[in-house]
Protein backbone atom coordinates (compact mmCIF):
# COMPACT_ATOMS: atom_id res chain seq x y z
CA UNK A 1 0.00 0.00 0.00
CA UNK A 2 1.30 3.43 -0.90
CA UNK A 3 1.35 6.21 1.65
CA UNK A 4 -1.26 8.91 1.53
CA UNK A 5 -5.02 9.19 1.53
CA UNK A 6 -6.86 6.32 -0.11
CA UNK A 7 -8.93 7.39 -3.09
CA UNK A 8 -11.09 4.78 -4.76
CA UNK A 9 -10.76 6.52 -8.15
CA UNK A 10 -6.99 6.87 -7.91
CA UNK A 11 -4.73 5.40 -10.56
CA UNK A 12 -3.63 1.86 -9.65
CA UNK A 13 -0.75 0.76 -11.81
CA UNK A 14 0.76 -1.99 -9.73
CA UNK A 15 4.35 -0.92 -10.44
CA UNK A 16 6.99 1.61 -9.39
CA UNK A 17 9.99 3.24 -11.04
CA UNK A 18 12.60 3.92 -8.34
CA UNK A 19 15.22 6.71 -8.50
CA UNK A 20 18.39 7.84 -6.73
CA UNK A 21 17.35 11.49 -6.72
CA UNK A 22 14.10 13.46 -6.57
CA UNK A 23 14.86 15.47 -9.72
CA UNK A 24 15.27 12.20 -11.68
CA UNK A 25 11.77 11.15 -10.63
CA UNK A 26 10.29 14.49 -11.69
CA UNK A 27 12.07 14.35 -15.06
CA UNK A 28 10.89 10.78 -15.70
CA UNK A 29 7.31 11.68 -14.85
CA UNK A 30 7.39 14.49 -17.43
CA UNK A 31 8.87 12.22 -20.12
CA UNK A 32 6.26 9.53 -19.52
CA UNK A 33 3.33 11.94 -19.41
CA UNK A 34 4.49 13.53 -22.68
CA UNK A 35 4.14 10.08 -24.28
CA UNK A 36 0.65 9.67 -22.78
CA UNK A 37 1.57 7.09 -20.17
CA UNK A 38 -0.71 7.18 -17.15
CA UNK A 39 1.65 7.73 -14.20
CA UNK A 40 1.84 9.57 -10.89
CA UNK A 41 4.48 10.65 -8.41
CA UNK A 42 4.26 8.72 -5.16
CA UNK A 43 6.24 7.93 -2.03
CA UNK A 44 7.46 4.35 -2.30
CA UNK A 45 6.67 2.00 0.58
CA UNK A 46 9.71 1.49 2.87
CA UNK A 47 10.13 -2.13 1.80
CA UNK A 48 10.71 -1.11 -1.82
CA UNK A 49 12.64 2.13 -1.31
CA UNK A 50 16.05 2.21 -3.01
CA UNK A 51 17.48 5.70 -3.27
CA UNK A 52 15.25 8.75 -2.86
CA UNK A 53 11.79 8.93 -1.30
CA UNK A 54 9.99 9.79 -4.54
CA UNK A 55 8.96 7.25 -7.16
CA UNK A 56 6.76 7.14 -10.25
CA UNK A 57 3.84 4.74 -10.15
CA UNK A 58 3.25 3.05 -13.52
CA UNK A 59 1.06 0.38 -15.02
CA UNK A 60 3.48 -2.52 -14.48
CA UNK A 61 2.22 -4.23 -17.64
CA UNK A 62 3.83 -1.37 -19.58
CA UNK A 63 7.28 -1.94 -18.01
CA UNK A 64 9.17 -2.77 -21.25
CA UNK A 65 7.87 0.26 -23.18
CA UNK A 66 8.52 2.58 -20.24
CA UNK A 67 12.02 1.21 -19.67
CA UNK A 68 12.89 1.66 -23.35
CA UNK A 69 11.50 5.21 -23.42
CA UNK A 70 13.41 6.31 -20.30
CA UNK A 71 16.64 4.78 -21.61
CA UNK A 72 16.20 6.47 -24.98
CA UNK A 73 15.92 9.84 -23.20
CA UNK A 74 18.91 9.11 -20.92
CA UNK A 75 16.62 9.37 -17.92
CA UNK A 76 18.27 7.65 -14.97
CA UNK A 77 16.35 5.25 -12.75
CA UNK A 78 17.33 2.51 -10.32
CA UNK A 79 14.77 -0.19 -11.01
CA UNK A 80 11.20 -0.93 -12.07
CA UNK A 81 9.33 -3.22 -9.68
CA UNK A 82 5.81 -4.51 -9.09
CA UNK A 83 4.23 -3.26 -5.87
CA UNK A 84 3.38 -6.76 -4.72
CA UNK A 85 5.30 -10.01 -4.70
CA UNK A 86 9.00 -10.77 -4.87
CA UNK A 87 9.48 -8.53 -7.89
CA UNK A 88 11.27 -11.10 -9.99
CA UNK A 89 10.20 -11.74 -13.54
CA UNK A 90 9.56 -15.36 -14.35
CA UNK A 91 12.71 -16.78 -15.93
CA UNK A 92 11.69 -20.42 -16.32
CA UNK A 93 11.84 -21.56 -19.93
CA UNK A 94 10.51 -24.94 -21.08
CA UNK A 95 10.51 -26.73 -24.43
CA UNK A 96 8.20 -29.23 -26.10
CA UNK A 97 9.39 -31.30 -29.05
CA UNK A 98 6.92 -31.99 -31.85
CA UNK A 99 9.44 -33.86 -34.02
CA UNK A 100 10.07 -31.48 -36.91
CA UNK A 101 9.34 -28.45 -34.75
CA UNK A 102 10.10 -27.23 -31.26
CA UNK A 103 7.92 -25.12 -28.98
CA UNK A 104 9.69 -22.85 -26.49
CA UNK A 105 7.60 -21.62 -23.55
CA UNK A 106 8.51 -18.62 -21.40
CA UNK A 107 5.85 -17.71 -18.87
CA UNK A 108 2.55 -17.30 -20.68
CA UNK A 109 4.15 -17.09 -24.17
CA UNK A 110 5.02 -19.88 -26.59
CA UNK A 111 6.96 -19.72 -29.83
CA UNK A 112 7.22 -22.71 -32.17
CA UNK A 113 9.80 -22.99 -34.95
CA UNK A 114 10.69 -25.47 -37.67
CA UNK A 115 13.80 -27.38 -36.62
CA UNK A 116 14.93 -27.83 -40.23
CA UNK A 117 14.51 -24.28 -41.51
CA UNK A 118 14.42 -22.07 -38.39
CA UNK A 119 11.15 -20.55 -39.59
CA UNK A 120 8.71 -19.34 -36.90
CA UNK A 121 5.57 -21.42 -37.38
CA UNK A 122 3.33 -20.12 -34.62
CA UNK A 123 3.16 -17.89 -31.55
CA UNK A 124 0.57 -18.64 -28.89
CA UNK A 125 -0.42 -17.54 -25.42
CA UNK A 126 -0.36 -14.08 -23.92
CA UNK A 127 -3.04 -11.47 -23.92
CA UNK A 128 -1.66 -7.95 -24.21
CA UNK A 129 -2.48 -5.84 -27.28
CA UNK A 130 1.01 -5.94 -28.78
CA UNK A 131 0.96 -9.73 -29.11
CA UNK A 132 -1.27 -9.94 -32.24
CA UNK A 133 0.94 -7.25 -33.80
CA UNK A 134 4.14 -9.16 -32.97
CA UNK A 135 2.48 -12.39 -34.13
CA UNK A 136 1.85 -10.91 -37.58
CA UNK A 137 5.29 -9.33 -37.83
CA UNK A 138 7.21 -12.50 -36.82
CA UNK A 139 5.20 -15.35 -38.31
CA UNK A 140 6.77 -17.26 -41.24
CA UNK A 141 10.10 -15.43 -40.77
CA UNK A 142 13.36 -17.17 -39.95
CA UNK A 143 14.47 -16.76 -36.33
CA UNK A 144 17.64 -15.12 -37.58
CA UNK A 145 15.67 -12.55 -39.60
CA UNK A 146 12.86 -11.66 -37.16
CA UNK A 147 13.19 -8.56 -34.97
CA UNK A 148 13.45 -9.09 -31.25
CA UNK A 149 9.99 -8.63 -29.63
CA UNK A 150 11.66 -6.51 -26.96
CA UNK A 151 12.42 -3.85 -29.56
CA UNK A 152 8.88 -3.58 -30.90
CA UNK A 153 6.68 -4.60 -27.97
CA UNK A 154 5.50 -2.51 -25.04
CA UNK A 155 4.16 -4.99 -22.49
CA UNK A 156 5.16 -7.81 -20.17
CA UNK A 157 3.69 -10.31 -22.64
CA UNK A 158 6.13 -8.98 -25.25
CA UNK A 159 8.95 -9.39 -22.73
CA UNK A 160 7.98 -13.03 -22.13
CA UNK A 161 7.78 -13.56 -25.90
CA UNK A 162 11.27 -12.05 -26.17
CA UNK A 163 12.55 -14.65 -23.70
CA UNK A 164 11.00 -17.47 -25.73
CA UNK A 165 12.40 -15.96 -28.93
CA UNK A 166 15.91 -15.54 -27.47
CA UNK A 167 15.95 -19.13 -26.22
CA UNK A 168 14.64 -20.43 -29.56
CA UNK A 169 17.32 -18.48 -31.41
CA UNK A 170 20.04 -19.89 -29.11
CA UNK A 171 18.79 -23.45 -29.66
CA UNK A 172 18.60 -22.91 -33.42
CA UNK A 173 22.13 -21.50 -33.60
CA UNK A 174 23.54 -24.36 -31.49
CA UNK A 175 21.81 -26.95 -33.66
CA UNK A 176 23.05 -25.23 -36.83
CA UNK A 177 26.65 -25.50 -35.62
Amino acid at each position, binding site marked *: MLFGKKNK*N*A*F*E*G*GGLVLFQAVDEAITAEKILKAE*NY*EVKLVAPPPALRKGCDLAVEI*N*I*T*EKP*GIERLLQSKDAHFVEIL*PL*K*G*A*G*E*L*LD*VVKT*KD*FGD*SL*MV*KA*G*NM*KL*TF*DKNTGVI*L*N*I*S*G*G*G*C*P*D*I*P*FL*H*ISMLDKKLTEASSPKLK*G*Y*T*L*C*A*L*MLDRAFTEALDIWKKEAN
Partner: protein
Amino acid sequence: MLLVCGTIPQKHLSLIKGDAVFEQERLLIDGSEIPCTQGTAALISAACVTAKHLKSAPPQVLLAGDTGKGKGSHLLYDYLISHLSELNPDVLLMHYILPVMGQMKKVVAASAKCKKKPVLMADASSMYAAKGAGLAPEFDIFTPDICELAFLADPDAVHPAYIKHHLFTADGTQAEALIAAAYRQKGAAKLLIAKGSTDYVIEKGKIACTISEPDIPTLEAIGGTGDTISGMAGAMIVAGLTQMDSAVAALKTNRKAGELVNATPATKIRQLITTIPDALKNII
Protein backbone atom coordinates in the same frame (compact mmCIF):
# COMPACT_ATOMS: atom_id res chain seq x y z
CA MET B 1 -26.71 -9.94 -27.86
CA LEU B 2 -23.04 -10.91 -27.55
CA LEU B 3 -20.80 -7.84 -27.37
CA VAL B 4 -17.13 -8.60 -28.00
CA CYS B 5 -14.76 -5.85 -26.97
CA GLY B 6 -11.06 -5.92 -27.90
CA THR B 7 -8.19 -4.49 -29.90
CA ILE B 8 -6.82 -5.37 -33.30
CA PRO B 9 -3.21 -4.88 -34.42
CA GLN B 10 -3.64 -1.71 -36.46
CA LYS B 11 -2.00 1.50 -35.26
CA HIS B 12 -4.39 4.06 -36.64
CA LEU B 13 -7.79 2.40 -36.45
CA SER B 14 -10.05 4.32 -34.14
CA LEU B 15 -13.14 2.90 -32.46
CA ILE B 16 -15.44 0.80 -34.64
CA LYS B 17 -18.70 -0.87 -33.71
CA GLY B 18 -20.79 -3.17 -35.81
CA ASP B 19 -21.86 -6.65 -36.92
CA ALA B 20 -19.24 -9.29 -37.60
CA VAL B 21 -19.29 -11.86 -40.42
CA PHE B 22 -16.78 -14.65 -41.10
CA GLU B 23 -16.68 -16.01 -44.67
CA GLN B 24 -14.02 -18.08 -46.43
CA GLU B 25 -11.24 -17.37 -43.93
CA ARG B 26 -12.09 -13.64 -43.99
CA LEU B 27 -13.46 -11.60 -41.10
CA LEU B 28 -15.64 -8.63 -42.05
CA ILE B 29 -16.82 -5.93 -39.66
CA ASP B 30 -19.61 -3.91 -41.28
CA GLY B 31 -18.16 -4.89 -44.66
CA SER B 32 -14.50 -4.05 -43.94
CA GLU B 33 -11.98 -6.87 -43.72
CA ILE B 34 -9.98 -7.41 -40.54
CA PRO B 35 -7.07 -9.92 -40.75
CA CYS B 36 -8.14 -13.14 -39.04
CA THR B 37 -5.14 -13.68 -36.78
CA GLN B 38 -4.55 -14.82 -33.23
CA GLY B 39 -6.28 -12.49 -30.76
CA THR B 40 -9.65 -10.78 -30.79
CA ALA B 41 -10.08 -11.36 -34.54
CA ALA B 42 -9.89 -15.13 -33.97
CA LEU B 43 -12.34 -14.89 -31.09
CA ILE B 44 -14.86 -12.94 -33.16
CA SER B 45 -14.49 -15.31 -36.12
CA ALA B 46 -15.19 -18.34 -33.92
CA ALA B 47 -18.19 -16.57 -32.39
CA CYS B 48 -19.52 -15.80 -35.90
CA VAL B 49 -19.39 -19.37 -37.18
CA THR B 50 -20.90 -20.66 -33.93
CA ALA B 51 -23.75 -18.16 -34.06
CA LYS B 52 -24.42 -19.10 -37.67
CA HIS B 53 -24.50 -22.82 -36.78
CA LEU B 54 -26.94 -22.14 -33.94
CA LYS B 55 -29.01 -19.78 -36.13
CA SER B 56 -28.63 -16.91 -33.69
CA ALA B 57 -27.69 -13.28 -34.26
CA PRO B 58 -24.05 -12.52 -35.17
CA PRO B 59 -21.89 -10.95 -32.48
CA GLN B 60 -21.70 -7.20 -32.11
CA VAL B 61 -18.16 -5.99 -31.84
CA LEU B 62 -16.48 -2.96 -30.35
CA LEU B 63 -12.91 -2.72 -31.62
CA ALA B 64 -10.04 -0.28 -31.62
CA GLY B 65 -6.57 -0.38 -33.13
CA ASP B 66 -3.76 -0.90 -30.63
CA THR B 67 -0.27 -2.28 -31.10
CA GLY B 68 0.61 -2.12 -27.42
CA LYS B 69 0.85 1.56 -26.47
CA GLY B 70 -2.66 1.46 -25.06
CA LYS B 71 -4.36 4.28 -27.00
CA GLY B 72 -7.01 2.03 -28.52
CA SER B 73 -7.49 0.21 -25.24
CA HIS B 74 -8.28 3.48 -23.45
CA LEU B 75 -10.82 4.36 -26.16
CA LEU B 76 -12.54 1.04 -25.49
CA TYR B 77 -12.60 1.47 -21.73
CA ASP B 78 -13.96 5.01 -22.02
CA TYR B 79 -16.67 3.97 -24.49
CA LEU B 80 -17.77 1.03 -22.37
CA ILE B 81 -17.87 3.09 -19.18
CA SER B 82 -20.08 5.70 -20.87
CA HIS B 83 -22.28 3.52 -23.08
CA LEU B 84 -22.55 0.03 -21.61
CA SER B 85 -25.99 0.60 -20.13
CA GLU B 86 -27.30 1.76 -23.56
CA LEU B 87 -25.70 -1.18 -25.35
CA ASN B 88 -27.27 -3.52 -22.78
CA PRO B 89 -25.65 -6.75 -24.01
CA ASP B 90 -26.68 -10.19 -22.76
CA VAL B 91 -23.01 -11.19 -22.68
CA LEU B 92 -20.04 -8.82 -22.47
CA LEU B 93 -16.86 -10.57 -23.56
CA MET B 94 -13.73 -8.53 -22.91
CA HIS B 95 -10.52 -9.60 -24.58
CA TYR B 96 -7.18 -8.10 -25.78
CA ILE B 97 -7.24 -4.74 -24.00
CA LEU B 98 -4.30 -3.24 -22.12
CA PRO B 99 -4.93 -4.17 -18.48
CA VAL B 100 -5.78 -0.99 -16.58
CA MET B 101 -7.18 -1.92 -13.21
CA GLY B 102 -8.92 1.37 -12.41
CA GLN B 103 -10.69 1.39 -15.78
CA MET B 104 -11.77 -2.22 -15.38
CA LYS B 105 -13.38 -1.33 -12.05
CA LYS B 106 -15.39 1.38 -13.79
CA VAL B 107 -16.52 -1.02 -16.54
CA VAL B 108 -17.76 -3.50 -13.93
CA ALA B 109 -19.57 -0.66 -12.13
CA ALA B 110 -21.16 0.35 -15.46
CA SER B 111 -22.32 -3.23 -16.06
CA ALA B 112 -24.34 -3.05 -12.84
CA LYS B 113 -26.31 -0.14 -14.35
CA CYS B 114 -27.54 -2.20 -17.31
CA LYS B 115 -31.23 -3.06 -17.37
CA LYS B 116 -30.19 -6.67 -16.83
CA LYS B 117 -26.63 -7.26 -15.70
CA PRO B 118 -24.78 -8.94 -18.58
CA VAL B 119 -22.93 -12.19 -18.25
CA LEU B 120 -19.37 -10.92 -17.74
CA MET B 121 -16.66 -12.89 -19.53
CA ALA B 122 -12.97 -12.03 -19.60
CA ASP B 123 -10.14 -13.67 -21.48
CA ALA B 124 -6.50 -12.70 -22.13
CA SER B 125 -5.42 -9.32 -20.73
CA SER B 126 -8.95 -8.43 -19.67
CA MET B 127 -8.76 -11.42 -17.35
CA TYR B 128 -5.43 -10.07 -16.05
CA ALA B 129 -7.03 -6.69 -15.34
CA ALA B 130 -10.06 -8.22 -13.64
CA LYS B 131 -7.94 -10.47 -11.42
CA GLY B 132 -5.35 -7.77 -10.72
CA ALA B 133 -8.06 -5.33 -9.66
CA GLY B 134 -9.58 -7.86 -7.26
CA LEU B 135 -12.70 -8.15 -9.40
CA ALA B 136 -12.49 -11.84 -10.32
CA PRO B 137 -15.52 -12.95 -8.25
CA GLU B 138 -17.61 -10.28 -10.03
CA PHE B 139 -17.03 -12.07 -13.32
CA ASP B 140 -19.10 -15.00 -14.51
CA ILE B 141 -16.49 -16.64 -16.74
CA PHE B 142 -12.70 -16.63 -17.16
CA THR B 143 -10.94 -18.74 -19.80
CA PRO B 144 -7.37 -19.41 -18.61
CA ASP B 145 -4.79 -21.86 -19.88
CA ILE B 146 -2.64 -23.77 -17.37
CA CYS B 147 -0.12 -20.93 -17.00
CA GLU B 148 -2.90 -18.42 -16.48
CA LEU B 149 -4.44 -20.75 -13.90
CA ALA B 150 -1.18 -20.37 -11.96
CA PHE B 151 -1.56 -16.59 -12.34
CA LEU B 152 -5.07 -16.73 -10.88
CA ALA B 153 -3.69 -18.82 -8.00
CA ASP B 154 -0.97 -16.29 -7.16
CA PRO B 155 -2.33 -13.67 -4.76
CA ASP B 156 0.36 -11.10 -5.63
CA ALA B 157 0.77 -11.33 -9.40
CA VAL B 158 -0.91 -8.63 -11.49
CA HIS B 159 0.44 -10.20 -14.70
CA PRO B 160 1.50 -13.79 -15.56
CA ALA B 161 5.09 -12.56 -16.03
CA TYR B 162 5.32 -12.20 -12.23
CA ILE B 163 3.96 -15.61 -11.22
CA LYS B 164 5.95 -17.21 -8.42
CA HIS B 165 8.32 -19.85 -9.77
CA HIS B 166 6.86 -22.76 -7.82
CA LEU B 167 3.44 -22.09 -9.33
CA PHE B 168 4.69 -21.81 -12.91
CA THR B 169 6.62 -25.05 -12.69
CA ALA B 170 3.36 -26.73 -11.78
CA ASP B 171 2.39 -28.94 -14.70
CA GLY B 172 -1.07 -30.06 -15.72
CA THR B 173 -1.13 -32.73 -13.02
CA GLN B 174 -1.21 -30.01 -10.39
CA ALA B 175 -4.16 -28.21 -11.94
CA GLU B 176 -6.46 -29.18 -9.09
CA ALA B 177 -4.18 -27.53 -6.52
CA LEU B 178 -4.02 -24.38 -8.65
CA ILE B 179 -7.79 -24.31 -9.00
CA ALA B 180 -8.25 -24.61 -5.24
CA ALA B 181 -5.71 -21.83 -4.63
CA ALA B 182 -7.30 -19.57 -7.25
CA TYR B 183 -10.70 -19.77 -5.54
CA ARG B 184 -9.18 -19.47 -2.07
CA GLN B 185 -7.40 -16.24 -3.12
CA LYS B 186 -10.57 -14.92 -4.81
CA GLY B 187 -8.64 -14.89 -8.08
CA ALA B 188 -11.20 -16.87 -10.07
CA ALA B 189 -14.49 -16.09 -11.79
CA LYS B 190 -17.61 -18.09 -10.93
CA LEU B 191 -16.93 -20.41 -13.87
CA LEU B 192 -13.53 -21.26 -15.28
CA ILE B 193 -13.04 -22.78 -18.73
CA ALA B 194 -9.45 -23.97 -18.45
CA LYS B 195 -7.59 -25.19 -21.53
CA GLY B 196 -4.71 -27.64 -21.34
CA SER B 197 -3.66 -31.17 -22.18
CA THR B 198 -6.71 -31.92 -20.03
CA ASP B 199 -9.41 -29.28 -20.15
CA TYR B 200 -11.31 -28.38 -16.99
CA VAL B 201 -14.67 -26.74 -16.42
CA ILE B 202 -14.82 -25.46 -12.86
CA GLU B 203 -17.89 -24.01 -11.23
CA LYS B 204 -17.57 -22.15 -7.94
CA GLY B 205 -14.37 -24.00 -7.12
CA LYS B 206 -15.55 -27.49 -7.99
CA ILE B 207 -14.39 -29.40 -11.07
CA ALA B 208 -17.57 -30.13 -12.98
CA CYS B 209 -16.05 -31.74 -16.06
CA THR B 210 -12.72 -32.77 -17.57
CA ILE B 211 -12.05 -33.38 -21.26
CA SER B 212 -8.94 -34.95 -22.72
CA GLU B 213 -10.09 -36.52 -25.99
CA PRO B 214 -9.41 -36.29 -28.82
CA ASP B 215 -5.84 -35.64 -27.71
CA ILE B 216 -4.32 -33.04 -30.08
CA PRO B 217 -1.07 -31.81 -28.45
CA THR B 218 -0.27 -29.52 -31.41
CA LEU B 219 -3.23 -27.27 -30.49
CA GLU B 220 -1.05 -25.74 -27.77
CA ALA B 221 1.32 -24.35 -30.38
CA ILE B 222 -1.37 -22.75 -32.55
CA GLY B 223 -1.91 -19.10 -31.68
CA GLY B 224 -5.60 -18.39 -31.11
CA THR B 225 -6.91 -21.73 -29.83
CA GLY B 226 -7.87 -20.15 -26.51
CA ASP B 227 -9.52 -17.25 -28.32
CA THR B 228 -11.73 -19.63 -30.31
CA ILE B 229 -12.93 -21.34 -27.12
CA SER B 230 -13.98 -18.00 -25.61
CA GLY B 231 -15.73 -16.90 -28.80
CA MET B 232 -17.64 -20.13 -29.17
CA ALA B 233 -18.70 -20.17 -25.51
CA GLY B 234 -19.95 -16.57 -25.69
CA ALA B 235 -21.98 -17.28 -28.83
CA MET B 236 -23.48 -20.43 -27.31
CA ILE B 237 -24.62 -18.64 -24.15
CA VAL B 238 -26.38 -15.98 -26.22
CA ALA B 239 -28.01 -18.73 -28.29
CA GLY B 240 -29.57 -20.12 -25.12
CA LEU B 241 -27.25 -22.83 -23.87
CA THR B 242 -26.39 -22.82 -20.17
CA GLN B 243 -22.96 -21.51 -19.22
CA MET B 244 -21.90 -25.02 -18.22
CA ASP B 245 -23.13 -26.63 -21.46
CA SER B 246 -21.49 -23.85 -23.47
CA ALA B 247 -18.17 -24.37 -21.71
CA VAL B 248 -18.17 -28.11 -22.32
CA ALA B 249 -19.34 -27.79 -25.94
CA ALA B 250 -16.74 -25.11 -26.75
CA LEU B 251 -13.88 -27.21 -25.38
CA LYS B 252 -15.06 -30.33 -27.20
CA THR B 253 -15.58 -28.44 -30.45
CA ASN B 254 -12.09 -26.96 -30.30
CA ARG B 255 -10.52 -30.40 -29.97
CA LYS B 256 -12.73 -31.81 -32.72
CA ALA B 257 -11.83 -28.91 -35.03
CA GLY B 258 -8.15 -29.63 -34.37
CA GLU B 259 -8.72 -33.24 -35.31
CA LEU B 260 -10.65 -32.38 -38.48
CA VAL B 261 -8.01 -29.92 -39.71
CA ASN B 262 -5.20 -32.42 -38.89
CA ALA B 263 -3.58 -29.73 -36.78
CA THR B 264 0.19 -29.38 -36.97
CA PRO B 265 2.36 -26.77 -35.24
CA ALA B 266 2.24 -24.81 -38.50
CA THR B 267 -1.58 -24.71 -38.75
CA LYS B 268 -2.96 -21.18 -38.71
CA ILE B 269 -5.97 -20.27 -36.60
CA ARG B 270 -8.10 -19.24 -39.60
CA GLN B 271 -7.73 -22.79 -40.95
CA LEU B 272 -8.97 -24.23 -37.67
CA ILE B 273 -11.90 -21.80 -37.58
CA THR B 274 -13.09 -22.96 -41.00
CA THR B 275 -13.51 -26.49 -39.58
CA ILE B 276 -15.53 -25.33 -36.54
CA PRO B 277 -18.89 -25.63 -38.35
CA ASP B 278 -18.19 -29.30 -39.13
CA ALA B 279 -16.89 -29.87 -35.62
CA LEU B 280 -20.03 -28.30 -34.15
CA LYS B 281 -22.19 -30.79 -36.09
CA ASN B 282 -20.54 -33.50 -34.01
CA ILE B 283 -21.13 -31.73 -30.70
CA ILE B 284 -24.42 -29.79 -30.70
